[in-house]
């Protein structure tokens, strides 16, 4: 038996790592990976709560989060490719103009 709070703490740690990566990383691809890390942390708490309250809809919701994350990463990586094509850099500090 693992207490629910342990799962929630693990999910919180993962989310905090994602937020930290989002703040300190300067490579746009790594920032994007940090977002995926945050989504994973939230998914873990969804599944833990679903098991706690015997509600399978929590797991279905994780499925929807994964679908949206897949769509988001496809579009986001395409945007990264477009940015690299115009700016020739992946550093977010150098991407500071809306228009070239």
């Amino acid at each position: 038996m693992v207490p629910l709070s342990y799962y929630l703490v693990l999910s919180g740690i993962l989310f905090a790592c994602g937020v930290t990566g989002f703040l300190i990383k300067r490579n746009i691809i790594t920032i994007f990976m940090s977002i995926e890390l945050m989504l994973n942390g939230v998914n873990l708490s969804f599944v833990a709560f679903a098991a706690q309250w015997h509600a399978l809809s929590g797991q279905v919701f994780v499925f929807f989060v994964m679908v949206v994350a897949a769509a988001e990463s496809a579009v986001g990586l395409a945007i990264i490719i477009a940015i690299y094509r115009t700016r020739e850099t992946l550093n977010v500090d150098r991407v500071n103009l809306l228009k070239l």
Partner: protein
Amino acid sequence: MLHLIVFSAFGLICVAGAVNLLVQRHPINSALSLVVVMGSLAVEYLLLGAEFVAAVQVIVYAGAIMVLFVFVIMLLNAGEEERTKGSRVAMLFGIPGVLIGSVLVAWVLLEHSVTDSVAVGALPGPPKVIGWLLFHDFLLPFEVTSVLVLIAIMGAVVLASHPESKQPDKREG
């Protein structure tokens, strides 16, 4: 007891992978540590009895999405990231802030938890039941996500394709 040991082992691997993602400076190392995080999370889902979610986690997250990431990293030939002034400021204020916040949240969760333990396998999530839920109770969201995925595919193709002026004109071949 055994469940607690498995949970702690894979939880530690998970957190180690997440910290490694932050420490590494080359994006490909970060991507591979993200694969470790997702694989160990799949084991945690199995511990909670969510078989379907664990399988989808491995196939979609650790498989498809990470392949996409590694593909883009190699396509753009991304090198080591450079530290700038902005990143030092973010590190100075971001890491202590996030640490304080997460310790506070963990303390509240551990001290004031009123819930019991999660019984392993108490709620099996077999694909049959999940599929029934998806196609009955969640039919409308399911169809909406199919539209979303279609739009995402079109958007990715439009964004990643070359501008038309640079493309060789195939009609005159």
